[in-house]
């Protein structure tokens, strides 16, 4: 098998990567004559097979994993990160290094993790970059003498993760500490359970092969010591919480759990000291561990959603361009003072409330007001923080910054709403209350029965009953069902923040829907066309030359791939009025009624229609060709394609639907009527405060015992307070990510299309929870019957308890709550990973 060798002196060649496996090709195998290099025959063959099978997409996928395509870089300088105020607020000095935590946008997989943690090799002076993938927060440590934070931030932005300061460091440090405490408790409980199980195994084995009595006593004492530790340290949470439940007379699942643990533990201690009788240390310690584990996963899940509050900060920018003399400088908004002058470029959010000092532009205030049309502002007009400057540069005189701005006040309302929300009594807790009563009654019965039959073993049997009826399947399986359901829902793009939501959404109730961005697309689009169709291509060509939002919407919606291209020779645009151009040799004027009528003759019919449309809340745009009006286009906020079908299905299921919008009443009525709402169900012109009041009024009118809940669906900041006040607030994608903070469910897909899927999943999850209840009830009644009959010994308890929990667990894991997320197929060229 001798290869034909042509030994030449080693040549330094350019590095090459194998086309197939992406590993380095040995320099001796590089063939300069070929485009594709391979490291071996295997790879060459594999490459040709992949090609003949039509699977080239594999390389594309792998490429995405290997080097995540750099996202379009921003031109932000991040110079404000070097500002003294910023440094004081967000960084700390540890020895020669400076540390800072930054929240990164767009972090979502282990490839991001790998890329970001490799950053120290790309940026000189950066010593460490640790990413918490779940929270999207990177912890940086760097040498300030070598590199500035702004430079690190620019690098992060250039690879597609624009950073912003993580502001609530203190509250998070607290949460991290709490997490750590929980984990320590869990680990301790696990270690104890494992050891006690070993002793128990030895003891059970000793039943059969006559064990030395001194060994037996030693094992019993050792398991006692360990179990007592488990009960007073990790297990103490159950006793504390049931004590609170008893004092406040609120039913809680922890009460029967604590009862079982306490009875089993105490009685076993007693029998151990006495030297004879049954012990339940193994069952008790395993219960403590299993229950703590269930609880830990549940709280982790909820924590993950709570952290999304970070997104709130994406609402207002973290920096501003302050005008200082002739130049502008990036400064953090914390250092802005009333009276400062800031420059706001087109496309930026406003950093503060203030007055326009100079400039003329359109501002999108839909976040605050729900108004779908951009508002024109000019010198002297008031503008609000968080709104978006659309078309031209503005200079704004700062009046208020931070919490005292309009958006800041709205956020305070949101926070209040979250606290005011009535606690929904949890399903398992209610069942747990009945459980406790039943158990106690049965235990009393057993005690009485056996005091009469065999007084020596009466307490033994009663304790056995209490231990074996511990509702751990309920205490464990319910959180697991909820955790799995929320996890699966999250992968389907539905972020559910708490278990109570699942219960609330499993039955139909009353739903209040926001209009802008929820039922409609939230942007301008062509909603009507009247007149000559042949000029559509002409309008498209002319409007394509402009960047004005109206022009952009027209150009987008009039695109016709089959139309022949039209040549536009000269254009003249008048801001806020219209455009005049020569296209295909014809003079074309497009714009508002007043603008077009000064330059061309407008027919009576067109003028009438334009006025009627304007009255209905849609924007009429006239088109005149060669001096005569020929067509009329209407721009408005288009209804989402899936809205009608979804709403009809909701009505069929028994939901009562209303629209509440900040937009003009006429607009709301028009949209409502196309979606099947009656006139009185369409409420327009509502301020955020009025929406809040509406939600509270509707909520109060519902009977809490009927199981009917008030659901608010919205997207903008103007909905945030109402979202927080509703029984369940559902925020939809597209508007302010800030409403995330206020809502209970966040749908990452635009529109209300996924609401049905959400409700179906919640219904199925509740079904599984109920089924778990029946499973555990079955086990518990069987075991209770055995215990009452006096036949239960610790061995049977140790076998039955885990089986009951495990079967409930298995049922939960296998059941379909939300559709399981299938991995994306390599074979399917249409799907994107």
């Amino acid at each position: 098998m001798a290869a034909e060798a042509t030994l030449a002196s080693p040549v330094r060649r350019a590095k090459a990567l194998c086309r197939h496996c992406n590993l380095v090709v040995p320099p001796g195998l590089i063939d300069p004559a070929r485009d594709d290099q391979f490291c071996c025959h295997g790879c060459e063959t594999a490459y040709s097979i992949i090609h003949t099978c039509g699977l080239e997409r594999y390389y594309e996928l792998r490429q995405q994993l290997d080097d995540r395509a750099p996202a379009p870089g921003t031109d932000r300088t991040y110079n404000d990160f070097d500002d003294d105020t910023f440094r004081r607020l967000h960084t700390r000095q540890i020895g020669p290094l400076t540390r800072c935590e930054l929240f990164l946008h767009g972090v979502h997989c282990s490839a991001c993790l790998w890329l970001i943690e490799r950053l120290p090799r790309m940026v000189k002076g950066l010593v460490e970059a640790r990413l918490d993938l779940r929270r999207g927060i990177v912890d940086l440590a760097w040498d300030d003498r070598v590199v500035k934070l702004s430079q690190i931030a620019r690098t992060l932005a250039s690879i597609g993760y624009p950073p912003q300061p993580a502001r609530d460091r203190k509250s998070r440090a607290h949460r991290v500490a709490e997490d750590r405490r929980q984990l320590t408790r869990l680990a301790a409980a696990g270690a104890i359970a494992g050891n006690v199980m070993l002793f128990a195994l030895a003891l059970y084995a000793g039943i059969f092969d006559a064990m030395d009595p001194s060994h037996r006593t030693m094992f019993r004492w050792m398991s006692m010591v360990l179990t007592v530790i488990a009960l007073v340290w990790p297990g103490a949470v159950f006793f504390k919480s049931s004590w609170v439940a008893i004092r406040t007379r609120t039913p809680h699942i922890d009460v029967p759990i604590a009862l079982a643990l306490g009875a089993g533990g105490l009685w076993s201690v007693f029998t151990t000291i006495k030297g004879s009788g049954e012990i339940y240390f193994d069952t008790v310690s395993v219960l403590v561990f299993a229950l703590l584990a269930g609880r830990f996963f549940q709280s982790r899940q909820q924590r993950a959603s709570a952290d999304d509050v970070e997104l709130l900060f994406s609402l207002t920018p973290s920096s501003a361009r302050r005008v200082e003399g002739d130049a502008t400088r990036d400064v953090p908004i914390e250092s802005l003072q009333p009276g400062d002058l800031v420059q706001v470029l087109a496309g930026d959010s406003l950093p503060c409330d203030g007055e326009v000092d100079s400039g003329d532009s359109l501002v999108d205030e839909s976040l605050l007001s729900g108004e779908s049309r951009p508002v024109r502002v000019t010198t002297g007009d008031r503008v609000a923080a968080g709104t978006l400057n659309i078309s031209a540069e503005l200079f704004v005189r700062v009046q208020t910054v931070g919490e005292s701005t309009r958006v800041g006040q709205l956020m305070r309302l949101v926070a209040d709403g979250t606290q005011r929300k009535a606690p929904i009594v949890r399903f398992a807790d209610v069942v747990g209350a009945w459980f406790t009563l039943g158990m106690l009654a049965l235990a009393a019965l057993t005690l009485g029965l056996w005091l009469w039959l065999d007084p020596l073993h009466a307490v033994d049997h009663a304790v056995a009953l209490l231990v074996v009826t511990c509702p751990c399947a309920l205490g464990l399986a319910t959180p697991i069902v909820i955790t799995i359901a929320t996890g699966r829902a999250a992968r389907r793009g539905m972020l559910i923040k708490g278990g109570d939501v699942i219960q609330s959404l499993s039955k139909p109730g009353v739903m209040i829907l926001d209009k802008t961005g929820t039922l409609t697309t939230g942007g301008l689009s062509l909603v009507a066309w009247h007149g000559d169709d042949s000029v559509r291509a002409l309008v498209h060509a002319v409007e394509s030359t402009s960047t004005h939002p109206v022009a952009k919407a027209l150009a987008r919606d009039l695109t016709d791939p089959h139309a022949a291209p039209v040549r536009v020779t000269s254009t003249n645009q008048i801001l806020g009025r219209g455009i005049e151009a020569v296209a295909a040799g014809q003079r074309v004027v497009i714009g508002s009624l007043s603008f077009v009528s000064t330059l061309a003759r407008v027919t009576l019919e067109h003028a009438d229609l334009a006025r009627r449309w304007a009255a209905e809340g849609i924007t009429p745009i006239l088109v005149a060709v060669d001096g005569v009006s020929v067509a009329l286009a209407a721009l408005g906020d288009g209804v989402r394609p899936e809205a009608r079908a979804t709403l009809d299905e909701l009505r069929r299921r028994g939901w009562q639907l209303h629209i509440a919008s900040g937009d003009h009443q006429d607009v709301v009525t028009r949209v409502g009527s196309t979606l099947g709402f009656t006139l009185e169900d369409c409420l327009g012109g509502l301020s955020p405060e009025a929406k809040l009041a509406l939600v509270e009024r509707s909520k109060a009118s519902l009977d809490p015992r009927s199981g009917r809940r008030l659901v608010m669906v919205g997207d903008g900041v103007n909905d945030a307070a109402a979202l927080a006040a509703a029984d369940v607030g559902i925020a939809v994608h597209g508007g302010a990510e800030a409403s995330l903070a206020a809502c209970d469910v966040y749908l990452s897909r635009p529109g209300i299309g996924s609401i049905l899927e959400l409700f179906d999943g919640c219904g199925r999850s509740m079904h599984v929870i109920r089924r778990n209840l029946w499973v555990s009830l079955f086990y518990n009644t069987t075991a209770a019957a055995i215990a009452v009959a006096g036949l239960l010994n610790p061995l049977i308890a140790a076998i039955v308890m885990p089986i009951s929990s495990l079967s409930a667990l298995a049922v939960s894991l296998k059941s379909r709550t939300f559709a399981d997320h299938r991995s994306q197929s390599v074979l399917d060229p249409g799907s994107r990973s």
Partner: protein
Amino acid sequence: MTPLIAGIFVASLLGSLHCAGMCGAFLALAVTPDEESRVGKASLHVAYNAGRLCSYTTLGLVAGLVGRSLDLGGEMVGVQRAAAIGASLIMIGFGLIAVARAQGYSIRRLHPPRALQAAVQKAYAAAGAWSPLGRAYAIGLLTTALPCGWLYAFVLTAAGTGDPLSGALAMAAFWLGTLPVMAALGVGLQSLFGPMRRHLPMATALLLVIVGVISLAGRVRHMRESAAISEVFCHGG
């Protein structure tokens, strides 16, 4: 025997990044469930790797048989352990050529027959039409049909054992070494190994030499021992 099996396992484990690069695409094809099927990813992984195991051990068995017949033939002309020594030497030779290539010396490759390549392509295309589980298993089986130098170096070692069972065992050890990387593939593992990749050609080349040396040393010791035993017998008798 044990040092050789251990050596194969360690070499395979360290060099398995190559397998990940080369077979990653096929693995992805094998473990992609159909839209409507209810087969889980885990079972597909199991089927694929089971296919590989069957294919490897069969190859090892056959190689062992060939080695055995070489040994028998060698003994007839008075050469002891012909297969083992031959295989070890070829293996070391392979390794040295690979080291030279990694150093930049140009040594031409032997081309596998075109017909084989075409047959393998057809087989893959056919497997693509099967049910997910069958497809995963078949793609696993077909792994050995790729002309992979790394794999065949170990098949050579298996032949060197001169015993079908040991040959199968040697290939099973090789399979076990590739298992961690192949099982973990699909989570962007390629990226995680980033810095290691640069030195892979040299590393695998050296590993080949080492396994060859272990194999040769084992044989030589074995020969000495059997020589010693026969001496005892001669003198004792």
